[in-house]
């Protein structure tokens, strides 16, 4: 771990996450936006994205994330 820390110290200021998730996602969202009518996008949003969020993200990953937050800050 020390070796890793030495390599990374001072190098993690700019998160690649902004690029990997932000840049890529905004890029693909733009493409979808440009190439798809509102009606189709809304249908896929409701029936695919919304359903997955409702059955996966909300009940599971939100709970895991909040538990890490609370445990880190000793809330529970």
């Amino acid at each position, binding site marked *: 771990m020390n070796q890793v820390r030495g390599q990374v110290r001072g190098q993690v200021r700019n998160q690649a996450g902004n690029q990997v998730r932000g840049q890529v996602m905004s890029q693909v969202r733009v493409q*979808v936006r440009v190439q798809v009518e509102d009606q189709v996008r809304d249908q896929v949003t409701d029936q695919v994205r919304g359903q997955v969020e409702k059955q996966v993200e909300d009940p599971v990953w939100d709970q895991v994330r909040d538990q890490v937050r609370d445990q880190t800050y000793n809330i529970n």
Partner: protein
Amino acid sequence: MLDKLNDEQIKGIEVCRDKWIKVGLQTGPIDRDAAIVAANKAYKCAGLEPPKEVVFCSSPLDMDKKIREISNNEHNFMSSYGFANCWSGWVAFIDYFHTYTDVKNLEAFEGLRDMSYNCGFVSFFDTHVFISERPEYIKMDDTGRTHCENGPAIRYADGFEVYIWHGVRVPKKWITDGPDIDQALHNSNLELRRVASEIIGWAKILDHYQAEVIDEDADPQIGTLLRVNIPEVGEEYFLKVLCGTGRTFAIPVPEQDDEGKRIDTALAANAWTYGIKPWEYKPEVRT
């Protein structure tokens, strides 16, 4: 421009939805070799150099510890977690267009898609990517809410656990030992107070606060009408009733029925729970 979905594309909606629900709820060890390939692809898709180090973490909590340690507390899990199965909704959305339509230029998304298949939570940095294992198990009730009444609903192999009662996160002690009645009913969070009451059971709470009997019907399946003073809540009315399965329940009932008439008998309270008048109450079968 794609302005209408054809029959095949409409059929694909359910297939795509179910596929990503399955991926998003996947448990068990990740394939670390596949995760590294996917991470490199995600960086490449974003026009970046591959990460110098892939740091595997046994759980999101372990990830928080490692990110803090490596970044000298500049970052933590909460500020940096990114794509993977935790955002499977977005992945499903883009994957639908990628798979079932001819919308172009979605190749940049393939790295993130592959990470979702092969990783738990992920945090991306310039030189490092942190990848968490998936949980050992996720338990749910029959409505799809995370729930376990005798242990953690979500557990990671390193011991990180999440205790959840029908979708509401609760302190571990509430599940392992049961909530303390006085503490639970003074909880400032109303949702948690409701959940605590549910875990303890209203029948026990009413005994604890020595509820006063207003009317007791000869038939235990019609029940007993009770009044109780609950701290910081005030005076409440309950019908304590034996159900057809042999268990005793306490159901909150109002002081007055829907027409403003005072509910002063167990029969009236029981009838109210069915939305009928006391004289109409003649159940033939109870389950």
